[in-house]
């Protein structure tokens, strides 16, 4: 063995030779310590890094997306070789350190290289625990720890066949998902009866299991592995109950063990890991240790956030600090499987004196549980909607008193502060509501204030820049959404947005906007086309995506696309509102709220003839007939049609009503003919399909009796013309309109209305009302398109009127005539 020492430090006339720092382990904790150290004391050490893996430092967390094919290795490299060079660090990859000689202060590596140190940092991470069953060392059995493991899995996946993943925890499930995406038949074996039982309770575990099974991953719980079967290679896994599962690949993901061999051999104090004090120093004061290989106050860790906190302290101590101390961490977990949102933190086993607050939304697949004890959050499990995870976690860590918000705690921080139709939560408001001290990025411990400050002071305008400057969202990426919201909040219009938003639903990874762009760009003209070209994961979508696709196609191809009634919610299919007892309500249109003796008589006759139990005046200035039996609907419509009445679309994601006051015709304050204008607006806009319902109103003077300033578009007449107000709604979260523009003539009101409706139709996402749409794109954007650009406005209005030329057929008349969808209203058969 050749003995070899560091080249002598370059002679420097003023400074003493630099101290020598050796780092063993080129992983996440070790290199993070160096980054922190270089920021504090760039010149203090001559640094040498040994890494057993042949690669520069990469983001281990992101191995899961690499396995799933969502990222390449290059994309997860944290520091390339140029970084080491630029910082004068000597990097020795593919060379494992085998021994530490504490007396002489040297380390010796596999290659025989020996390097002397003044300070040594051990950051050797951990190793997958391989359960000691026969066959565990057969080829084809891998752990899930490093890039080599991922490469082995990808090779196996390329050959197809069956994979068995032992262990249904975080790592095992991420491996299972990746292998499934890569085309293998995957079975997960889990000893316990709940997946991720350390992070999830039974309900969330069941949801997760169901989701994974829906993706075609088989899950066996209570499965205790007895043996891995195979001659030259693995061929099956046998369970204690005798069941045998054929396997071409076996992934062991049953846990990790701190990799403390080197420390132990060197005689450092070790327990479950290399023992360190609050200064991250081992039993030898010259040697520090960080990462998964350490035991601190009896605890070991397996997530990056605590390691990064350790790295900060270690770096400070190496830089000469004497005060900083690591005192342990509370951790939270997120699962990184695209499309599955799972968050867990703290202790949620519940029990005596604990109070459970649970929220379920079956339709959205949301489950939230917060465990409270003595008015403080003890733990939280979120499934399906994890955006408030950071908020709970912050309160958990801070021990915040939750009594003041106890009643709405489960709805998250933006409850009551947000807006939006149908209770849609607003993530922007949620982030806006957080205090500056709230932690956004759990991995790197970056709080809101730091991010906002970096954005403003350094002029950052994209996610990548924020990552580069603050490290927020640079590790596991779960907080990406919140960072984007912060960019949007801080920069307003100056933020162009990022490519990746939430997928439309579980059937696809594409966002609403991506799907819409593809419909236009690829000229997709039917729902099956969209699903085929955009690789939907389900044969025919679900109740979330089908109505949305139907709308997008209808909007993009007016006159060409044939509406798909099977993709419409029942109300829009039968043109009436289903009630809780399965009967329907029928609302005929009353233009601008006007009616007549003839209409009222016809309504009265229909009520008598069909024994309609309830007649009510709606908030939209028309009459609602409640309790109509489904099979009576066509006949009811025929009678109403005969008196000249048409559908009021009170059921539609489309124009509902145009509410008016009496205006100058009768009212002593009236400045314009608000009723007449309302009728014109309703005649122009009725029958349109929009992303969500649209309500208009016209008030004859600023007294605003028609409540026009909480409508999607409201006109307030004044002496000199008309004020147009946009983006308001009533509903759960009332939002008052913003003033768009003031115009002088009715013709301008009509043109603006058409253009505004079309802009909303083209830009808003399905089920997004004008209020959240406006908040998302900004009033300035709408002004730019409509007010500053007269040609664009005229073009939008023209597109609106063109599409209206196909949509203003009374759906009642079509159905009353018996030519459309007759089958909707009659039973197939009567038996018995």
């Amino acid at each position, binding site marked *: 063995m050749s003995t070899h020492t560091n080249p002598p430090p370059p002679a420097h006339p003023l400074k003493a030779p630099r101290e020598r720092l050796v780092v063993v382990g080129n992983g996440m904790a070790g290199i993070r310590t160096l980054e922190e150290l270089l920021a504090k004391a760039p010149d203090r050490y001559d640094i040498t890094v040994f890494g057993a893996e042949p690669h520069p430092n990469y983001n281990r967390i992101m191995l899961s997306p690499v396995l799933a094919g969502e990222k390449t290795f290059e994309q997860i490299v944290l520091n390339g070789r140029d970084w080491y060079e630029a910082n004068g660090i000597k990097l020795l990859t593919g060379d494992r350190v085998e021994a530490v000689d504490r007396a002489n202060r040297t380390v010796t590596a596999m290659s025989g290289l020996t390097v002397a140190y003044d300070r040594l940092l051990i950051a050797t991470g951990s190793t997958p625990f391989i359960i000691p069953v026969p066959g565990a060392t057969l080829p084809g059995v891998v752990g899930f720890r490093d890039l080599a493991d991922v490469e082995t899995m990808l090779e196996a996946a390329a050959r197809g066949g069956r994979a068995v993943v032992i262990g249904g925890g975080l790592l095992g499930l991420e491996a299972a998902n990746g292998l499934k995406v890569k085309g293998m038949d995957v079975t997960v074996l889990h000893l316990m009866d709940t997946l991720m039982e350390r992070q999830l309770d039974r*309900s969330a575990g*069941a*949801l997760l299991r*169901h989701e994974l099974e829906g993706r075609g991953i088989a899950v066996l719980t209570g499965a205790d592995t007895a043996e891995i079967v195979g001659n030259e290679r693995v061929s099956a896994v046998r369970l204690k109950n005798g069941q045998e599962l054929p396997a071409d690949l076996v992934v062991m993901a049953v846990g990790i063990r701190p990799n403390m061999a080197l420390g132990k051999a060197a005689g450092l104090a070790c327990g479950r890991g290399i023992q360190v004090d609050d200064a991250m120093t081992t039993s030898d004061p010259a040697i520090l240790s960080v990462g998964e290989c350490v035991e601190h106050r009896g605890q070991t860790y397996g997530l990056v956030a605590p390691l990064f906190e350790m790295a900060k302290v270690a770096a400070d101590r190496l830089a000469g600090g004497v005060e900083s101390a690591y005192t342990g961490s509370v951790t939270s977990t997120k699962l990184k499987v695209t499309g599955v949102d799972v968050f867990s933190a703290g202790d949620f086993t519940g029990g005596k004196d604990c109070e459970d607050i649970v929220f*379920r939304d*079956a*339709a959205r*697949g949301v*489950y939230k549980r917060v465990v409270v004890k003595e008015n403080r959050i003890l733990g939280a499990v979120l499934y399906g909607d994890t955006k408030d995870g950071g908020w709970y976690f912050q309160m958990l860590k801070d021990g915040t008193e939750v009594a003041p918000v106890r009643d709405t705690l489960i709805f998250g921080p933006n409850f009551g502060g947000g807006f939006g139709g149908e209770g849609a939560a607003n993530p922007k408001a949620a982030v806006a509501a957080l205090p500056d001290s709230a932690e956004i990025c759990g991995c790197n411990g970056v709080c809101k204030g730091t991010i906002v400050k970096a954005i403003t002071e350094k002029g950052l305008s994209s996610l990548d820049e924020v990552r580069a400057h603050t490290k927020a969202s640079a590790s596991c990426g779960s907080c990406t959404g919140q960072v984007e919201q912060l960019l949007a909040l801080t920069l307003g219009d100056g933020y162009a947005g990022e490519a990746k938003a939430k997928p439309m639903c579980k059937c696809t990874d594409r966002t609403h906007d991506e799907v819409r762009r593809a419909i236009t760009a690829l000229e997709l003209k039917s729902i099956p086309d969209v699903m085929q070209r955009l690789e939907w994961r*389900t*044969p*025919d*979508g*679900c*109740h979330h995506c*089908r*109505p949305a696709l139907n709308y997008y196609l209808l909007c993009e191809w007016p006159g060409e696309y044939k509406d798909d*009634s*099977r*993709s*419409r*919610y*029942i*109300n829009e299919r*039968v043109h009436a509102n*289903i009630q*809780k007892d*399965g009967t329907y309500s029928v609302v005929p249109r009353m233009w601008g709220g006007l009616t007549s003796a003839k209409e009222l008589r016809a309504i009265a006759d229909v009520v008598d003839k069909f024994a309609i139990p309830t007649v009510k005046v709606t908030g939209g200035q028309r009459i609602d007939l409640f309790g109509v039996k489904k099979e009576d609907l066509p006949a009811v419509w025929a009678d109403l049609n005969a008196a000249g009445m048409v559908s009021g679309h009170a059921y539609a994601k489309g124009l509902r009503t145009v509410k008016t006051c009496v205006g100058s015709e009768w009212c002593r304050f009236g400045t314009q003919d608000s009723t007449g204008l309302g009728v014109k607006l309703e005649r122009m806009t009725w029958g349109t399909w929009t992303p969500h319902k649209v309500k208009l109103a016209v008030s004859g003077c600023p007294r605003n009796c028609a409540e026009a300033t909480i409508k999607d578009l409201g006109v307030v007449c004044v002496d000199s013309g008309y004020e147009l107000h946009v983006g308001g709604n009533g509903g759960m979260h009332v939002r008052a309109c913003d003033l768009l523009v003031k115009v002088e003539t009715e013709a301008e009101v009509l043109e603006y209305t058409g253009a505004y409706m079309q802009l909303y139709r083209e830009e808003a996402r399905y089920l997004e009302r004008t209020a959240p749409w406006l908040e998302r794109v900004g009033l300035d954007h709408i002004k730019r398109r409509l007010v500053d650009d007269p040609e664009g406005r005229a073009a939008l209005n023209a597109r609106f009127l063109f599409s209206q030329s196909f949509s203003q057929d009374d759906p009642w008349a079509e159905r009353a005539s018996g030519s459309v969808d007759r*089958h909707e209203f009659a*039973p*197939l*058969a*009567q*038996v*018995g």
Partner: protein
Amino acid sequence: MDQSISWITVGSVEDIPRQGSRVVRTEGGDIALFRTVTDEVYALEDRCPHAGGPLSQGIVHGARVTCPLHNWVIDLASGEAVGPDEGCAGHCPVRVVDGTVQLGLAAFRPGRGGCGHG
């Protein structure tokens, strides 16, 4: 085929819209017949296990239907609510012979409610 069940013909597959449903009136209540995008036919009691919503009016996707009242998703083959909801719509054997739909009404299996049944 199964000899122990007596089958009643109720119509043809073509009478049920694809990705849709039709109702058969019986003394014991309505039975909803569903036809999936791949032309499989299923029969469930037309009562959602949640609060009795008319499943026949829901959106059919895959071998599931979403109830129109509160969006529970019901598996057409078993009548079971898809997790995390719990409950089961009654279901009825059904078969297709030469394009005609036949129900085995006598073998109807009643459901069990989740919450607020009826």
